[in-house]
């Protein structure tokens, strides 16, 4: 009885998760950004599907799908945006709206999968170094230092070309189509491989403080193996800071992907990513005529997505930053 009175006198206590979610929702920009990213992802999935379904439909529908096919060449070169081609057309008369959406797939996938690769390496590396301590820690972290002082672009280029040559012949025997896909995968591996260094440092720092905490000691006393302690107790406790850092890594990797595609090392034509689309647009700049849509639309999408990710990151950090929330 007395308990229910006490409860009704105070507002119902929230669980940590729901309180965090509430804090997150209060951040309007972060919330809108989340919706924007969700909408973009949906569009990226739905648009190719629509085209695919329509292409096998009635003649009119098939004509529609044909017109917006991202790889379909036509005579309508360099058309400015109109009701027929919403974002205009490029040098080969391909519809830019479709190309931007197909490019979004590549850019977003690169961002997400590249980040996953860097997350796996970085968290494991940092956690093992921090937990093992001593010689192994020193050795592993010196390795990180050395990789830091190598220009990352050289490392990426060498990694991609090496991986490619190793697997290419082997893949070509199986199926030629796999080569393009393999190249994209190597791009992801390369991107992840140069982006895990900071993550490893951050995780190691966290693990160093976690290692001495009572619940970890308790688990050790109870006879848990180091692997069990790492996976069950230590790594889950680094998630907060890792997720915040992830929202910084995704834009970083997307930028790197656009840079590599710009170099011609990334995605190969006729496939496109935002980076390669921007590069194509930049090539068409001249003093006689500017095809502004070729550069404005892909850049616009890239910048908006990066902005959304940045706002989302700020929101997530506030969400986990309990001290700051209390101070407010």
């Amino acid at each position, binding site marked *: 009885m007395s308990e229910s009175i006490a409860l009704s006198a105070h507002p119902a206590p929230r669980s940590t998760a729901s309180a965090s979610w509430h804090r997150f929702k209060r951040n309007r920009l972060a919330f809108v950004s989340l919706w924007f990213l969700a909408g973009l992802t949906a569009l990226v999935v739905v648009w190719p599907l629509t085209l695919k379904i329509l292409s096998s439909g009635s003649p009119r529908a098939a004509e529609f799908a044909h017109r917006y096919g991202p790889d379909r060449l036509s005579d309508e070169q360099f058309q400015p945006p109109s009701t027929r081609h919403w974002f205009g057309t490029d040098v080969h008369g391909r519809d830019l709206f479709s190309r931007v959406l197909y490019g979004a797939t590549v850019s977003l996938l690169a961002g997400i999968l590249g980040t996953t690769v860097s997350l796996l390496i970085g968290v494991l590396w940092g956690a093992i170094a921090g937990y093992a301590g001593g010689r192994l820690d020193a050795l592993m972290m010196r390795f990180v230092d050395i990789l830091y*002082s190598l220009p990352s672009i*050289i490392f990426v280029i060498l990694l991609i*070309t*090496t991986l490619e040559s190793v697997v290419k012949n082997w893949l070509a025997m199986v199926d030629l189509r796999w080569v393009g896909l393999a190249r994209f995968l190597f791009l992801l591996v390369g991107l992840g491989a140069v982006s895990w260094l900071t993550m490893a440092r951050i995780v190691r720092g966290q693990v160093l403080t976690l290692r001495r905490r009572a619940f970890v000691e308790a688990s050790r006393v109870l006879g848990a193996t180091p692997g069990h302690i790492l996976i069950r107790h230590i790594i889950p406790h680094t998630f907060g800071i890792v997720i915040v850092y992830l929202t910084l890594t995704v834009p970083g990797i997307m930028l790197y992907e*656009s*840079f590599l595609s710009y170099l011609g090392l990334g995605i190969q034509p006729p496939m496109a990513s935002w980076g390669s689309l921007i590069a194509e647009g*930049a090539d068409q700049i001249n*003093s006689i005529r500017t095809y502004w849509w070729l550069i404005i639309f892909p850049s616009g999408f890239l910048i908006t997505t990066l*902005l959304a990710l940045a706002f989302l990151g700020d929101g997530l950090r506030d969400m986990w930053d309990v001290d700051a929330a209390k101070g407010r």
Partner: protein
Amino acid sequence: MYFLKRLALTLPLLLVISFLAFFLVHLAPGGPFDRERKPASPEIERALKAKYHLDEPLFKQYLRYLGLLWEVDQQGNWHHAPAGFDISLRYRNHSVTDIIAQGLPVSMLLGALAFGFAMAVGLPAGFFAAARQGHWEDYAASFFSILAVCIPGLVIAPLLIMFFGIKWRLLPVALWASPVHVILPTIALGLFFSGRIARLLREGMLDTMNARFIVTARAKGLGETAILLKHAFRLAVLPVVSYSGPLLADLLTGSFVIESIFQIPGIGLHLVNSSLNSDYTLVVGLSLVYAILLIGLNLLVDAAYVLLDRRVKYE
């Protein structure tokens, strides 16, 4: 003492880096002679490889690269094999030193200007955003900085050219000749980092403004300007200082995107092309330049920490 120890560690570190870079480029497929006129016959290719000692075991090549190799000639005399680090395998009329000496000053000038631009824009933006926290100045500056962080060089450079170069004809479109040519590349390269710096400083300022010594300063009756400039800024700038070490190393060794868009003869182009061409010696040379800059600048950063924050001590 601490710094002397760090300085002493630099040489082994550079050796390890050169070793790593050397082996990585050799591991990558293709050779320096792949992309030029096709060697007329396998014999010629073999002769080329023999001339540049590419047919030797890797470790011997590395020793030769460093100039630490002694060989026996037909008469049975030992003599020192000349060091191979200065011979560019791709541009065979030029030495690696030549190529770097030509490109590095250009890249360094552009990098230093971009760094100056980033600081000149980023520091005031971050400072005022923090000083006027919650007011419109804060929102404007914060929005500017987050926008700047989201616009990569390969987007802003074509846009700048399109508007300032072609549409309004105010500034030259490309090349590296007069001071006027410098403006667009500097902005294109520096804008991103000005956003980073503004965000770092704003955050640092907001953190320090809650510190006890700031409260004390306020209680003493110090003016707000004096508190912010003399006390808060000094500590808040520390994250910016530690960020500027790697940042400067990156900027001074050139940016491929900016240099290729604006046709600037810098070192950033070589950094990419040499590793695409498997120009072994140039890759290692450039990696070493980058590593030396990075290590040196990080030392400077740590030294600056001691000066700015007396609580920091190294042992």
